[in-house]
């Protein structure tokens, strides 16, 4: 090999490698809508009537952008394509086109389209958090709702209010996911314990005593349901925390904000929109979480949660080795293997129930040149197309009148009878403001508090931390991130 040939070759290879230095995809959390194997749902409101004539300049083109929160699966796309075809057939004045961008690329691509001045008109399904990455870009629907007399009375008013932000009414409810306490009846029976209350406000009977169903009570129950390899529970002497085979309680640990929201509503940003704050209830929730892992041993540690041997399918409750788990209704996608699960009430904190809430809908971008036509499409998606779309997305209908059939569809998936009324009752306790509400520098702030974020990871992995110090540190870090966002 000669230097004359070799050196330029290496230089060229180096240059090529340098030139292609960066790139990659956004591999973050799971989509907010569940898989397509979910429930079939409901009848819709009466068909929306589009004008029957083509305008002189030809139909207005409206672009529907998917999939910031699910909807990309081939079977889902088939339904979406049919919705588009049906819409176009019944609305000669509008030509609707459908753009699928896979979840991992959807955020970046939408940002690029917005920045390059080529944005779509309507976006969805998208969760509250997913939409907040584009805070300030959504159209206030209030004038269009008023102009078209769109009836919002069919939705729970507190759910409508979730979409009332500083930007205006940025959404109309479509699919909702109230939360509840998932639990395994068999494990309660095995431990000789009463099942948790299904009705909000009911007491829990423990050792013959009537106790408020709050987080102190659930901790006691969870200890009795946490069992080591020698079948000792977490209240017994000789309990071996290093060899636990069944855990008592799993909090929702996708997002520190969501975890906090089960203890009380709040926001990490103060009313001025720029000061970082930690709601007291959330601090209590995080301390409870930390204590659950490292002191009470009723919850999985971080490495246990990450282990595919212990937690093979997203949430430990799915594997059957956790007795109780707070989660959203979309998590029913993973409980099919269990035949003894049911839903119970979320415990109270300081005498108040707060059930963290997830919701998906379609939103119109402020940049649309055709707001009226985009709203026509939105009405169609929330109306005529809703049954098919809710079915394929696995969404629970936001319209109160459709929820009974939504329940029937959900129940049809399971052999065991589930008390779905618990989830319906949970809607009234939805957190307000929603825990996914906007924050300055949203995406960067999520690196601290979101899925796989710094603090969730650290608290799950490091025993012996002083939580007051940690929480103060988090607030300071958040402030830096907020400030960096301008």
């Amino acid at each position, binding site marked *: *090999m*000669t*230097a*004359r040939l*070799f*050196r330029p070759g*290496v*230089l060229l*290879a*180096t240059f*090529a*490698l*340098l*030139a*292609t*230095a*960066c790139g*990659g995809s*956004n*591999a*973050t959390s799971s989509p907010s809508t569940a898989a397509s194997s979910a429930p079939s749902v409901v009848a819709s409101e009466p068909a929306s009537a589009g004008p029957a004539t083509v305008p002189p300049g030809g139909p207005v083109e409206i672009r529907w952008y998917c999939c910031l929160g699910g909807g990309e699966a081939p079977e889902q796309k088939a339904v979406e394509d049919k919705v588009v075809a049906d819409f176009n057939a019944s609305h000669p004045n509008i030509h609707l086109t459908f753009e699928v961008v896979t979840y991992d690329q959807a955020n*970046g691509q939408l*940002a690029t389209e*917005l*920045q390059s001045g080529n944005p779509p008109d309507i976006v969805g399904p998208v969760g509250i958090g997913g939409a907040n990455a584009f805070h*300030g870009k959504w159209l206030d629907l209030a004038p269009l709702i008023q102009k078209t007399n769109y009836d919002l009375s069919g939705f729970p008013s507190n759910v409508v209010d979730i979409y009332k932000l500083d930007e205006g009414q940025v959404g109309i409810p479509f699919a909702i996911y109230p939360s509840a306490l998932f639990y395994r009846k068999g494990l309660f029976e095995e431990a000789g314990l009463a099942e948790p209350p299904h009705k909000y406000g009911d007491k829990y009977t423990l050792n013959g005593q009537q106790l408020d169903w709050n987080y102190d009570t659930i901790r006691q129950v969870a200890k009795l349901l946490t069992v080591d390899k020698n079948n000792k529970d977490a209240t017994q002497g000789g309990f071996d925390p290093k060899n636990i085979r069944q855990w008592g309680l799993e909090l929702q640990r996708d997002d520190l904000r969501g975890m906090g929201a089960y203890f009380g509503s709040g926001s990490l940003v103060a009313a001025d929109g720029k000061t970082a704050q930690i709601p007291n209830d959330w601090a209590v929730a995080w301390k409870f979480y930390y204590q659950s892992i490292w002191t009470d041993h009723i919850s999985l*540690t*971080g*490495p*246990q949660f*990450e*282990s*595919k*041997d*212990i937690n093979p399918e997203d949430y430990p409750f799915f594997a059957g080795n956790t007795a109780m788990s707070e989660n959203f209704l979309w998590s029913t996608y993973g409980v099919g293997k269990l035949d003894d699960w049911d839903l119970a009430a979320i415990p109270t904190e300081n005498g108040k129930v707060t059930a963290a809430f997830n919701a998906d809908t379609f939103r119109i971008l402020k940049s649309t040149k055709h707001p009226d036509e985009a709203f026509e499409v939105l009405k169609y998606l929330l109306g005529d197309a809703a049954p098919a779309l809710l079915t394929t997305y696995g969404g629970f209908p936001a319209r109160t009148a459709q929820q009974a059939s939504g329940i029937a569809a959900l129940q049809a998936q399971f052999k065991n009878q589930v008390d779905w009324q618990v989830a319906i009752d949970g809607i009234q306790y939805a957190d307000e403001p929603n825990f996914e509400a906007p924050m300055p*520098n949203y*995406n*960067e702030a999520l*690196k*601290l508090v979101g*899925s*796989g*974020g*710094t603090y969730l*990871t*650290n608290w799950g*992995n*490091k025993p012996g931390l002083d939580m007051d110090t940690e929480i103060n540190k988090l607030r300071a870090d958040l402030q830096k991130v907020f400030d960096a*966002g*301008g």
Partner: protein
Amino acid sequence: MASIPIQPLSQTRSRTRWRLSRPSLGRSALARHEAKWGLIFISLWIFGFFAFTLLPMIASLIFSVTNLSFEQSTPLRFVGLDNFAAALTDHTTWDSLAVTFRFAAFNLPIAIVVPFAVALVLNSRYLRATGIFRTLFFLPYVIPFVSGVLAWQGMLNLETGWVNLFLKMVGVQNPPNWLQDTTLIYPSLAFIGLWGIGAGVIVNLAGLKGIPTELYDAAKIDGAGWWASLRNVTLPMMSPVIFYSLILGIVDVLQYFLVPLVLYNGTGEPGGSTLFFNLLLYNNAFQFNRYAYGATLAWVLFAITLAVTLIVFRTSRRWVYYAGER
């Protein structure tokens, strides 16, 4: 007898140079035909290079001197070198550079020595079934790297990972949390990196196969043992391959990105020890949508990588031996 005219040597050389300096292509129909097809065959690459490499590079250079961002709270404008100044005064930039160079110092020797050592073993005449071993070493390389990283995440899990289960089996009471301990994170990452040494092994093996056996025979006659042969024959003859591996290794390690992104979602955990420079760049450009600042960091990385590479090139004259070089 007529004298035969002797052409001066200098003229001959001069003509030869003239001939070599003029491209022969295009001088004959066949050459033109070959040139045309050559251009046709590389045209796709040229198009791809312009469209997907050169133009984005130029665009990113332009971005880096603007205030382009997703929010665009102020109108788009030329900001000169403000972004570069901001990058150089931000302690996160220096922290991530320190992380990158610390890991490079740890990982580069491993990434060069281990494939070389494996290739030496595979090249040994005492090893049987070398084909099987070569295949086994290369196999992990063809598995998508993200899958490999996720598999290693499982292997290194504190509770159920095979590494710790083995350690417990041999009596280690409290095996380490490999992926969450700041003192063990670089060894762990280097360990994961060894998963993909297959290509390096093949390159080294090809280099070893190319060393003339006469050199070893001559060394043997001179009384050289295994070590002396390695030092005086193998290493000098392999130095171009080692140099090549080093350059690629430097470029790779300065762009180190995928493993920490998969393992830690780009947060830089544990304790900021995995916030590599390229990850900082990726976060800013593609996660936080600070396009101009991200482009600036990309050019900073380009400059650093180029500088380090050129320094290594300069040193290569002292330690890289090219057999055909005068």
